[in-house]
């Protein structure tokens, strides 16, 4: 079986499982809504201020929701020794990583698509700068969170405090990516400066950590 066919098979399996049970999506969605509501109570800015801070609020909320999703997708592999079965099979580990990352990416993007209108409503947001740039920001930024998150979630599987280990590893690594996402989003919302360099930095970050993750995943998957 080729790399792409294994990736596709694993991705289809994950999407099918999620579609039938919908447990990750439902809990993530509700969690995201709660986060938006709590933020809107904690930070109650004027319209001018809200454009400045909305970028940060939105991406912090997405980061927390992504962590919930990431914890769930790998935990699914441990039930019924699915992960062990995969390791015993002759399939290489790298397509598994890519498929997991793509699946997580899909879930988090769906989540963002559903949460963004809520944020716009709660904070009365309107983009002063080029709103179309928000799409590459969302795509590159989400991939930055998800590719590292999937990798560290796999590492966290074999630890005593599985759920807390993922954020402990992911948050420091996400700091430059968060700076990129937040500043790019703020640039688009306020229209005060250009988001282009930040988008380019996010892309570079994505490339570097995707390649590193693909290359190193085999080593950590076998860390039984």
């Amino acid at each position, binding site marked *: 079986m080729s790399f792409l066919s294994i990736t596709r098979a694993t991705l289809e399996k994950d999407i099918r499982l999620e579609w039938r049970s919908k447990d990750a999506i439902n809990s993530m969605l509700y969690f995201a809504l709660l986060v938006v509501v709590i933020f809107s109570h904690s930070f109650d800015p004027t319209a001018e201020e809200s454009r400045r801070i909305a970028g940060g609020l939105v991406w912090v909320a997405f980061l927390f929701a992504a962590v919930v999703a990431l914890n769930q997708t790998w935990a699914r592999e441990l039930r019924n020794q699915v992960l062990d079965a995969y390791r015993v099979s002759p399939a290489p580990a790298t397509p598994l990583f890519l498929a997991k990352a793509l699946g997580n990416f899909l879930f988090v993007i769906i989540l963002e698509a559903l949460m963004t209108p809520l944020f716009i409503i709660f904070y009365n947001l309107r983009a002063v700068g080029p709103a179309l740039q928000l799409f590459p920001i969302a795509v590159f930024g989400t991939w930055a969170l998800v590719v590292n998150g999937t990798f560290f979630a796999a*590492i966290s599987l074999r*630890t005593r405090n599985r759920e807390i*280990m993922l954020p*402990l590893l992911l948050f420091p690594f996400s700091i*430059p990516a968060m700076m990129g996402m937040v500043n790019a989003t703020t640039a688009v919302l306020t229209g005060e400066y250009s988001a282009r360099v*930040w988008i380019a*930095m996010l892309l570079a970050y994505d490339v570097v950590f995707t390649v590193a993750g693909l290359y190193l995943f085999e080593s950590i998957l076998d860390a039984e």
Partner: protein
Amino acid sequence: MKRGITILAVVTSIMLCLALYFALAQPDWPLGTPTERTMGYVQRIFYYHVPSAWTAFLLFFINLGASIVYLARRSPKADIVALVSAEVGVVFCTVVLVTGPIWARPVWGIWWDADDIRLQSTLIMWLIYISYLILRRVSTSSLTAVVAAVVAILGALLVPFVFFSIWFYRTQHPSPVIAHGGSLDPHMAFVLLFNWAAFLCLAGLVCWTRYRLEIAKRQVEEAQALESLMETSP
């Protein structure tokens, strides 16, 4: 080996005492250090802050090297060097992060500048290595060393992005100008380097002792595992 450690311990103690004297001695004392003109006496934290930073970064660099060697060769000694340098590096980095704000408050008027490259990169390296150490402690995998080495390498890959993101943020959001540098009085430079040498000796002493401790600990664990295997088999 034992004699080497004893000699190093003696040398370290002497150097640390001398370094303390040089760092704190008033200019009118014998071999005293001049007090800085604008900052005054508080500037002397510099003799602890800067050498700690250099030592911490050196140790983190050693950790990166040991991690790469471990992934390439799977040598247990490389793994122990990685663990030891991370632990001692985190301690020195903590010193940097504590002495920095103590120095900054009287001199710059602020405890922390969120947009300073060196502050942020030091903070992020500290965070990554604390996560590294926690991972080592709570990992239940038998190949913890491999996983830890991978995390260390990913951490090294992160550093350029940290520098770039903060540098670029500064160009878009000019911050209060904080003057660094200027030239250093040669006597101050001597005290700085002497302190660094003393800290390097201290780091070497602690690392060496911790290395021997870790080797002994692993030998004990292996012996215990072997013993329990012997007991359970009929």
